[in-house]
């Protein structure tokens, strides 16, 4: 065990509860609950948390609704065993319907911000320009967005990571440096970070400026209410006006309904429940959708990876998980050309590496036994910028919960193959002894030529290659044209009154960077406008 001891961390959630925060735990409700407010916000991640703080500060009465549990620094013991089942959607088993993608998405008060790896990028100017020119968005020029990014960077203490990167990240900068490729330091939303490496299991020191320790406590201190362990079942719709939401109370296993219901009546409803659960809520509610756009163009930043073994210890499970990135291959073929990608590395805890690494038997065991010497590299493929990149679509399963279909085509496979090539090249340039593409039959090769040959010959069929996603975007696209968009440029739902969607689900494409700051910036502006309208 690491010799660091984490203790005496003030638990701001338990302190807040003791100070009289108004919260309701669905799991322990003994009877149905009815509440009323100005604005109900469904979902407490990057979009919901940001909206809650802004609207509360503007004097509106706010109720936040969250399906997951309310946890805090005292609970975050850095154990994967507990974190995955407790803090991730479907206990980390969320996947696309054909199993091609493993989807990592948070399920707790604070949403994915509780478990993300803190990378905080502004929306790239190329993406903003594409949205403005191709999707007709209003107010999304770089200059118009800059003050909102600036505001949220200050709010969440986003700064370039000033401490030297851990060895796992250094491999990316060293490899890129040797090859003459772009690399840079990642801005992170942390304050007093201990450089531990456990962002993905919930920050035990409250250094990560997630919604759980920033905007949500601010909203609760300002009188907002929080209802957790509550799954939004249906929007209350009367005469083309949304009047709130009906929720099922959810048991502590995060799966079963307790049978109790929570009805929240509101002047205005904000959905911020993500690119999978959000479209599903609209579909369950029979929300008008004359052009069949709800749940379409769901993007994932498809992520292939390569593993490399080094001759010296890397210990990638310790230290800030993401501090270096490369955008060398992001825009060089144009915004709309072959799929561009951002290269990063993940944290290297054993459950995650063993699972994502694919394989079984003695070779798999041999690999995980070399964990301290392993580096993993990831490429976030920028989907949604090309005719052949339409993303996925969300529909309802027989149990009413969402299902995501995301077809894999040759355009995407080409991006996967190029990304595998370049990542292997960077790993060898940084001194890797051997490199292996993450694939059901991926083998280690000790030369670049051999691994490139292997990559060229790999069958990239679904469930042979492994593709991950930690970024669900789109599904309720923004746009001024009602034929192609679900909400307008301010997040207002096109076909009903009283409903905004303010989260990553309204992006018309993927971002081309880890999306949290894109959500914060866009939502802070839209929520401010919404608040002004509601106060008028």
């Amino acid at each position: 065990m690491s010799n660091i001891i984490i203790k005496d961390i003030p638990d701001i959630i338990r302190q807040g509860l003791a100070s009289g925060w108004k919260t309701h735990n669905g799991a322990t409700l003994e009877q149905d609950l009815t509440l009323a407010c100005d604005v109900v916000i469904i979902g407490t991640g990057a979009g919901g948390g940001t909206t809650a703080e802004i609207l509360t500060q503007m004097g509106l009465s706010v109720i936040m609704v969250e399906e997951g549990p309310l946890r805090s620094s005292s609970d975050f013991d850095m154990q994967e065993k507990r974190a995955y089942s407790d803090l991730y959607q479907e206990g980390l088993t969320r996947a696309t319907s054909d199993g091609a993608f493993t989807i990592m998405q948070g399920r707790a008060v604070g949403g994915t911000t509780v478990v993300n790896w803190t990378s905080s990028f502004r929306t790239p100017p190329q993406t903003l320009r594409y949205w403005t020119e191709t999707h007709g968005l209003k107010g999304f020029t770089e200059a118009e967005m800059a003050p909102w990014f600036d505001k949220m960077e200050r709010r969440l203490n986003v700064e370039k990571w000033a401490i030297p990167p851990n060895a796992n990240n250094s491999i990316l900068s060293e490899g890129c440096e040797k090859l003459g490729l772009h690399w840079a330091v990642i801005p992170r939303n942390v304050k007093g970070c201990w450089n531990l490496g456990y962002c993905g299991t919930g920050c035990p020191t409250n250094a990560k400026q997630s919604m759980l320790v920033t905007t949500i406590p601010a909203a609760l201190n300002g009188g907002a209410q929080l209802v957790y362990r509550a799954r939004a079942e249906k929007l209350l719709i009367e005469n083309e006006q949304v009047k709130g939401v009906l929720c099922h109370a959810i048991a502590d296993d995060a799966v079963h309904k307790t049978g109790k219901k929570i009805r929240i009546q509101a002047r205005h409803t904000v959905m911020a429940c993500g690119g999978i659960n959000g479209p599903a809520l609209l579909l369950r509610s029979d929300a008008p959708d004359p052009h069949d756009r709800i749940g379409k163009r769901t993007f994932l930043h498809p992520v292939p990876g390569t593993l490399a073994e080094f001759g010296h210890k890397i210990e990638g499970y310790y230290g800030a998980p993401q501090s270096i990135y490369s955008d060398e291959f992001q825009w060089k073929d144009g915004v709309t050309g072959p799929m561009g990608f951002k290269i990063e590395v993940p944290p290297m805890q054993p459950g995650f590496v063993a699972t994502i690494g694919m394989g079984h038997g003695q070779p798999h065991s041999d690999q995980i036994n070399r964990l301290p010497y392993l580096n993993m590299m990831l490429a976030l493929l920028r989907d949604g910028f090309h005719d052949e990149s339409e993303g996925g679509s969300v529909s309802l399963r027989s149990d009413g919960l969402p299902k995501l279909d995301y077809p894999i085509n040759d355009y995407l496979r080409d991006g996967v193959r190029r990304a595998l090539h370049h990542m292997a090249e960077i790993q060898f340039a940084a001194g890797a002894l051997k490199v292996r593409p993450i694939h059901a039959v991926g083998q280690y090769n000790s030369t670049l030529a051999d691994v490139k040959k292997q990559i060229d010959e790999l069958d990239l069929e679904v469930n042979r290659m492994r593709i991950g996603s930690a970024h669900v975007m789109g599904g309720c696209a923004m746009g001024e044209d009602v034929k192609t968009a679900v909400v307008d440029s301010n997040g207002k739902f096109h076909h009903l009154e009283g409903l905004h969607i303010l989260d990553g689900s309204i992006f018309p494409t993927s971002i081309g960077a880890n999306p949290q700051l894109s959500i914060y910036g866009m939502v802070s502006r839209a929520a401010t406008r919404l608040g002004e309208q509601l106060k008028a």
Partner: protein
Amino acid sequence: MHPDTLPGFNRRGFLKLGLVGSGLLLGAGLLGSLHGCATHQPKTASSQPMKVLREKDAVILSAIAPVVLKGNFPTEPAARQQALDRFLTDIDELLAHTSEYAHGELAKMFDLLYLMPTRGLMTGIWSDWQDASEEDIDAFLVDWRDSSFNLFRMGYAQLSQLTCLVYYSAPENWTAEMYPGPPQHIPG
């Protein structure tokens, strides 16, 4: 007739799965209900009832997990039994937090893997799971991994990934060489 001599089988007796095979997997729910699923709940080492897993699921996982984890899974009988009990408890706990839909889908797959003749046709394992050799189980995993039908490849990914996630997330299974573990956490 031994399956090896039937047309359409390879030397391990694994049906070269075509539409029939994937249809079997799709129709698993119906088949399971026709045969009357065992609902007896297995107990863990601490004799707590399992939350999701049924006895037959535990039998199958007990056979497969040591092969997926070969090399790192204990071989000495007492240690092996202890590791197995812990593994079943842990995988049950993870599954308990997934979804009712996932519980249903897994149950369908386990029904097919448990019953004859579907088990034999789909895996090439004609003996009971308890008696299957390590080689036969490995061959079944490889067949599913390399199948031309996604349903089987997905089955392989689910079985191998769930097993690895659960096993390597458990502190008892780390060696000092593999992972020294996280810092000590004393709740505030």
